[in-house]
């Protein structure tokens, strides 16, 4: 069977190469049959990659330890759900999984556009197939997931215990979905450049894909944070590790694109900028994969070096050169006469939002590659850690939050004094009242203070928009009015909802960074310690064991403000197969704060335990904000009646001048 998988991957590579060439040739020479043939090749690639994936999955589930990959990332005692997750637990499998998603999206895009975008589609197919060729080449020539061991292993080495966690089941697929779907807008941008169709057509065609990619990048980042928070046991959720930055950078640029594209739609400006953002997002996804796969940047956990680094850099250079060349070639046609009229306009607010987002991405990029650059330039490796990223990004984040309130309500072109009063008097007053209340509550001045006040300002703008719309339709019941309102303008109100989610996330980050309480004490049974409002008493240690692992749990009684609220049991686990201890956090999570307990160490001779307690305020709002954002994105993406009509109209129109 594994040989069949290998054969499928090899054939897929051939078909993908053919699809790329035939797409380009068919597009340039306008040969419809060549274009069809390229698209059929792309379908075939998808089919072959599905076969390969199914075969690898089957090998995993049957514990076929003759395969190197299966033996390295699973074992016969690994629970089934994690055996499936092992498909993306290791490098070879995750590259195959990546290719699977890429070819799946290619298939969907082609099916969606069977009757549309006929000038663009040959180049879209060709671009996506070129990307597929790269990943399939890695699978064929560099890291064969179907490689056999010289001698079959008797047992697998098992999946890393840190990955045996349900967040790890959904976090990588979600992030990969976000990464890979960024290829679709990229392919359309390339196709628009190649075909010289530089109007809004390509932008409208990829709007939903760009949102889809952005949504999954958001989700992937948040799930990664959630995983880190629950599993790693250091009390936080984000450490600016290179692999986190790798996922964060494309998200930032993609966010910038979603905003600036609105300016192009409304005012036909920033065409070049939008193309650049789409290209950059894609390049950053490749760069991110490079970061996590190459070991060039010493993330504490990409110590494994895989030798794929140079290939990713090569591919990245190829992408940048090809895209940059096309862009330069079309540059004269892309320029538009429209200009900004005033700093006090929505265009300007969006433009500044873009600059800040790209600025943050740049700062994160710089901090991430700085060790490598300093080693090249000065011969010494110099690292920067979380303090760097926090210091740079906190003020930029505040500017962004402020603009999130300004952008949606300021007028296009030029805001009149009347517009400014009407749009901002209420929200600014709300923000000032909030600031006064915070001062009375003795919240120390600083980033957290500013974040809370700005959050109220932004929520004020959103609330005001909903209330005004409501006043215009007072004859209807509130839920019905809300439904009609959102239904009529999904993009707008979905966007507001996303902003509410973003505000929630900002508040959670500010509160949990500024007001977190940390306590650590070594205790014997019966001893107590304090952490903020909480009193903790260490009662006893318990232990048990199964085939997979053994565990120690410290039973801790918890009081909050003098009232007993329950028992928590942080654990240490000792996995047997990769012999490795892990920390199992015990958490009591409420809307106002999380109590986060870690069993730091246990010393059997003396019976002493060291407990670490963290009180993290408002962390729940991080996850709640994520859910709100997801909801807002769904609203935004849902097709409206008007849009369906527009599509039908376009289809009708497209059929008139038949080729």
């Amino acid at each position, binding site marked *: 069977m594994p040989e069949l998988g290998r054969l499928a991957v090899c054939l897929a590579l051939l078909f993908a190469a053919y699809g790329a060439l035939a797409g380009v040739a068919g597009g340039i020479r306008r040969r419809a049959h060549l274009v069809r043939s390229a698209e059929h090749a792309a379908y075939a690639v998808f089919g072959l990659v599905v076969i390969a994936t199914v075969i690898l999955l089957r090998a995993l589930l049957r514990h076929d330890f003759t395969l190197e990959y299966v033996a390295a990332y699973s074992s016969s005692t690994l629970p089934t759900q994690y055996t499936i997750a092992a498909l993306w637990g*290791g*490098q070879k499998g*995750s590259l195959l999984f990546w290719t699977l998603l890429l070819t799946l999206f290619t298939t969907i895009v082609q099916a969606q556009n069977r009757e549309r975008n006929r000038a663009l589609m040959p180049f879209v197919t060709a671009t996506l197939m070129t990307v597929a060729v790269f990943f399939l080449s890695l699978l064929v020539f560099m890291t064969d997931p179907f490689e056999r061991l010289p001698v079959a292993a008797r047992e697998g080495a098992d999946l*890393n215990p*840190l*990955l045996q966690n349900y967040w*790890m089941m959904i*976090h*990588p697929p979600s*992030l990969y979905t976000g*990464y890979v779907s960024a290829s679709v807008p990229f392919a359309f941008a390339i196709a628009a450049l190649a075909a010289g169709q530089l109007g809004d057509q390509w932008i409208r065609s990829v709007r939903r894909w760009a949102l889809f990619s952005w949504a999954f990048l958001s989700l992937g980042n948040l799930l990664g944070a959630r*995983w*880190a928070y629950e599993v790693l046991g*250091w009390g936080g959720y*984000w*450490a600016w*590790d290179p*692999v*986190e930055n*790798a996922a964060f950078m494309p998200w930032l640029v993609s966010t910038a694109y979603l905003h600036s594209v609105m300016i192009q739609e409304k005012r036909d400006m920033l065409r070049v900028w939008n193309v650049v953002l789409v290209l950059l997002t894609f390049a950053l996804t490749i760069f991110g994969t490079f970061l*996590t796969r190459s070991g060039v940047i010493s993330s*504490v*956990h*990409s*110590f*494994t070096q895989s030798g794929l680094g140079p290939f990713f850099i090569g591919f990245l250079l190829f992408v940048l050169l090809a895209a940059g060349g096309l862009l330069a070639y079309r540059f004269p046609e892309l320029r538009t006469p429209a*200009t*900004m*009229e*005033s*700093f006090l306009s929505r265009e*300007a607010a969006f433009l*500044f939002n873009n600059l*800040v987002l790209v600025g943050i991405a740049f*700062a994160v990029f*710089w*901090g991430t590659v*700085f*060790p490598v650059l300093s080693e090249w330039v000065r011969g010494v*490796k*110099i*690292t*920067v*850690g979380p*303090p760097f*990223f926090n*210091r*740079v990004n906190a*003020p*930029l984040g505040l500017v962004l939050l402020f603009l999130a309130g300004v952008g949606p309500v300021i007028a296009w072109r030029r805001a009149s004094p009347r517009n400014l009063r009407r749009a901002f008097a209420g929200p600014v007053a709300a923000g000032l009242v909030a600031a006064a209340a915070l001062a009375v509550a003795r919240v120390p001045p600083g980033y957290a203070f500013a974040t809370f006040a700005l959050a109220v300002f932004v929520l004020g703008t959103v609330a005001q928009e909903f209330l005004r719309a409501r006043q215009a339709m007072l004859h209807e019941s509130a839920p019905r009015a809300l439904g009609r309102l959102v239904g009529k303008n999904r993009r707008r109100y979905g966007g507001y909802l996303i902003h509410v989610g973003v505000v929630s996330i900002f508040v959670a980050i500010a509160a949990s960074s500024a007001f977190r309480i940390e306590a650590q004490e*070594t205790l014997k049974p019966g001893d107590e310690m304090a952490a903020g409002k909480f009193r903790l008493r260490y009662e006893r240690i318990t232990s048990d064991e199964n085939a997979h692992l053994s565990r120690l749990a410290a039973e801790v009684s918890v009081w909050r403000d003098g009232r007993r609220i329950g028992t928590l049991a942080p654990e*240490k686990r000792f996995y047997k197969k990769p012999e*490795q*201890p892990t*920390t199992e956090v015990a958490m009591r999570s409420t809307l106002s704060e999380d109590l986060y307990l870690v069993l*730091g160490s246990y*010393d059997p001779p*003396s019976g*002493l335990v*060291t407990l670490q307690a963290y009180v993290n305020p408002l962390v729940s709002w991080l996850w709640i904000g994520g859910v709100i954002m997801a909801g807002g994105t769904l609203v935004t993406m849902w097709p409206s009646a008007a849009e369906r009509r527009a599509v039908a109209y376009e289809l009708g129109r497209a059929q008139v001048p038949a080729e």
Partner: protein
Amino acid sequence: MLNRRRFIVGAALIAAAVSYLVYAGIRTTSMYYFELGEFVARRDALLGETLRVKGWVKHGSVRWDAHTNELAFELATKDGGSPVPVAYRGIRPDMFSEGREVVVEGRYRRDGLAARQIMTSCPSKYEPAAGGGEPRAGS
């Protein structure tokens, strides 16, 4: 009509602000990162610096006091050469054990490294999926 120039100035101001933040951030928060060998070769110049050093935990050098949470060990090359004493107070990281590769972050003093953080590398098998994870910080 506002001309292009004013917008370019506005954009340049933002770019300058970002550049300044990055520059100042790196100046105030960056630290050296050395392999043990490099560190030993130039340690006289590094007295008092806060830095990161990567090396191996020397076999037989680990002393751990559960009462005070004090950890002392020697950071050495893979085969145990040129050991540098390390003192640390705090939770002993899960993955910390003799012979393992670690990165020590701390201040270099005359009597050795006063660590404020010990980062353990994940076992060689571990290839993280994209986007997942943090350093296993031991602080």
